């Protein structure tokens, strides 16, 4: 299937530029610092009782900083670069549909995002030498990380399809991701009522707290899936719009 050929190229393309290495290094350092702080904090006898990985995923703002900073940088070049260099033309005149192109690129972005989190697997492994680790919540935490990341990446794909300029693409995606995150946070300051449950449904912060505790709530996953589907649909429409623009 040629969609896999496209995916392979997209994934390899990350590593042609220094961006991949910078991102991997930055994410690893940031996550490492967060993990160190978490462990340091919990090893204080006066600290509340808690599991390190639970706090790593759901307990601090740092997780969100990494997730929200990194995803726009992953997707910024996806379609913008093809548009600005003209390669979109060679790509879309090959026997591959616009939808397949978008899906292949998205899959490559998700794969790269997963690669970014692979080094953090060292944390639960390290912890397991010193204490007993409950793997359920850890896996749920990774599932949440993947879900939230997939949602952010899909939004990033859409903004990348709107502009030739990678920086604009990254800034717009970052803004969108921040808005999406803040919407949920409003639950905490909302006066209650019907908007409350609505915002609660979208509250990524509590979602990650749940995942960190090992609770896999399918409503959260459905929410991520809906955003992903909608954003990718819009991306395909934006790619197709080139044909009709006049």
């Amino acid at each position, binding site marked *: 299937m040629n969609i896999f050929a496209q995916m392979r190229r997209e994934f390899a393309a990350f590593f042609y530029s220094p961006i991949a290495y910078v991102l991997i290094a930055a994410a690893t350092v940031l996550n490492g610092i967060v993990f160190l702080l978490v462990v340091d904090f919990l090893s204080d006898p006066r600290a509340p009782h808690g599991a390190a990985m639970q706090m790593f995923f759901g307990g601090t703002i740092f997780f969100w900083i990494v997730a929200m900073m990194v995803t726009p940088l992953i997707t910024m070049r996806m379609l913008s670069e093809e548009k600005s260099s003209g390669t979109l033309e*060679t790509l*879309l005149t090959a*026997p591959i549909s616009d939808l397949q192109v978008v899906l292949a690129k998205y899959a490559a972005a998700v794969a790269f995002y997963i690669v970014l989190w692979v080094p953090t697997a060292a944390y639960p492994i390290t912890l397991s030498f010193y204490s007993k680790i409950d793997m359920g919540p850890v896996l749920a935490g990774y599932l949440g990380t993947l879900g939230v990341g997939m949602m952010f990446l899909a939004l990033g794909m859409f903004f990348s399809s709107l502009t030739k300029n990678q920086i604009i693409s990254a800034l717009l995606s970052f803004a969108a991701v921040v808005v999406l995150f803040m919407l949920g946070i409003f639950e905490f300051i909302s006066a209650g009522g019907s908007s409350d449950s609505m915002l609660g449904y979208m509250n990524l912060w509590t979602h990650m707290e749940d995942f960190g505790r090992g609770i896999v709530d399918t409503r959260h996953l459905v929410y991520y899936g809906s955003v992903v589907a909608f954003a990718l649909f819009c991306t395909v429409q934006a790619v197709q719009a080139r044909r*009709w623009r*006049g």
Partner: protein
Amino acid sequence: MIKVEHLTKRFAATTAVDDISFDVQPNEVLGFLGPNGAGKSTTLKIITGFFSATSGKVEVDGQDVFRRPEAVKRFIGYLPENVPLYPEMRVHEYLGYRAALKRVPRSKRKKTVEQSIERCRLFDVRKRIIGQLSKGYRQRVGLADALVGNPRILILDEPTIGLDPNQIRQIRELIKELGQERTIILSSHILPEVEAVCSRVLIINEGKIVGQGRPEELRAGIVGGSASVTVEVRDPGGTARAALQGVAGVRSVEDPEDRGDGLIRFAVTADPDIGVRERIFDAAVTGGFKLLGLSSKTLSLEDVFVEITTRDDYDEVDGSREDEEEAQ
């Protein structure tokens, strides 16, 4: 093989392609000739399915390009203008990826890539990074990409632009060779180029077809059935002009240009027939002046367009060009 019917493409304010219809027969090499912004690239982008038309229809091998783009794209090899490539990939890597993208079965990929590399003489640079190659090589990588998978139809948008004369000759030879078993549409704004490789030519200006035919017919038609010959003589006696005017087939002798030392150059307009030059030679022998140079002038596109499109709204053509690029 390719059938274009009443094709129109409008961008915001301009009409890039205006009700164009033409057919391309199997194994025909069709040249698309026109100035920048005439609508050549837009037409080619519509045929390859990158743009849609505002109205009209394009059929490739009996299938509608808009309805069944993927079926049609499978047997088209396309070299876009400016040859967009991924600069960070290696030549053979890129061609391998393109072969997979074009659904060449895994077992045949290596062979088709090797063939393309050989045909476009890329063997020496196959392991180099595309971004570091010269313009000429990159052009050939683009062409090699178009050839990957051995498509029945090749659409080449300005295939020789930016190449040096040697490379241009090589590419022309290649296109001629390829044209023996394929249908090719190639666009150009260089008349001799189109003349060298195409069996039929369409001249397009401001989105409309303004002339078509075989290159010889077209040239004859464009200059009103006359040929321009430059004659350089050493003429101490001053008899040359009258003698030239007396040659059968010569219509006028103009612009004597005195180059000193008895050397004079004339611009002769004559019937389009090789015999005229022979008779000029004979006239020189009998007329007692020395013939130093005799050449028929090659028509440039500028000449053609002065003839075909003597209009004063030429700036608008440039305007539409910009719109076209923005729309991409």
